[in-house]
């Protein structure tokens, strides 16, 4: 993770016409993987994650001039990525005339034949369990369990109190372990 000074310099460069292009390359190279995996866990398929990631960087590039540094660049980008993924899922659901939950159920079913999913039965079960959670708990669980964000970072990204996040995570872990246990077939 970049230090505060590096981040400030990067933002300054991104907002300057002369240095913007190089700064953007640097930004992409620094954050592409973290943002990709964040989005991938939300939309599940690689192609969808790729679309959302590209849209995320387009939004970042177009809106960097209005970034005032009230939050960290890193959390600001995570918020854009999260919103892009949510918007993507909503649009997909509307297009298919169904709900986001159905879209996710379908995506889970497709994982079994997805060439870009190499998980075993328990990893598949874990994805199923995550999909049963309410949207906010899914986000908190993924970001805390797999991405190991601190509660303070999560609080800034998701605009929720640390206490609220702790209880969301606690409930999520409880539900997931219960789901995995009750569906143990391996």
């Amino acid at each position, binding site marked *: 993770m970049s230090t505060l000074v590096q981040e400030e310099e990067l933002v300054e460069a991104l907002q300057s016409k002369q240095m913007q292009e190089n700064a953007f*390359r640097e930004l992409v190279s620094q954050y592409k*993987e973290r943002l990709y995996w964040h989005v991938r866990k939300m939309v599940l398929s690689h192609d969808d994650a790729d679309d959302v990631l*590209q849209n995320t*960087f387009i939004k970042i590039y177009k809106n960097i001039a209005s970034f005032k540094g009230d939050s960290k660049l890193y959390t600001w980008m995570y918020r854009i990525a999260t919103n892009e993924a949510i918007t993507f899922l909503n649009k997909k659901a509307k297009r298919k005339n169904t709900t986001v939950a159905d879209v996710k159920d379908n995506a889970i079913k497709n994982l079994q034949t997805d060439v870009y999913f190499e998980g075993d039965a328990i990893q598949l079960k874990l994805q199923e369990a995550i999909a049963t959670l309410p949207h906010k708990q899914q986000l908190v669980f993924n970001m805390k369990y797999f991405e190991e964000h601190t509660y303070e970072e999560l609080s800034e990204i998701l605009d929720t109190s640390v206490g609220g996040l702790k209880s969301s995570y606690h409930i999520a872990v409880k539900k997931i372990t219960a789901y995995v246990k009750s569906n143990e077939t391996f």
Partner: protein
Amino acid sequence: METNKNIHGFKTPPDYFESIEDRVFDSIRAEALPKNTGFKVPSGYFEQLDTVLVERVIVKEKETKVISIFSRYRLGYVAAIAACAILLFSIFNDKQAETISNLDVALIESYIEEGSLDMDTYDVLALFDNEGIENLSLDNNLIDQDNLEDYLLESLDESAFTIE
């Protein structure tokens, strides 16, 4: 039990002891779960991503700026002129002409919902400069307050507010 005999001066975050059981149990429970998702990416995906993204974002942005014959602003002017033409036609034509009020609202809604009007908050904002946004005031009589409230309750996507 902490005694007051020798005070060490340390303190804990609020609710630390109240929530410690939950956190310990979360860790124990989570140990049974896999640490990886099982997702993978095509080979070379991240290596090529820099080029793909920079191409798509920067080059496209530059092209848009150079080829601005039919930019959104101009599109707005053209749309305004077209709207005036329809309005004039409807006023001066004796026959009952198609006006905006005759258009099927559901059709317009489905057109937007199907994504044919591919604009989001950022795109709409890009049509205004700062002054324009400040000067933008909505006529209160334009939208019925009850309808507005219903619409917000049904359609408001609170995630839109999480962006700075």
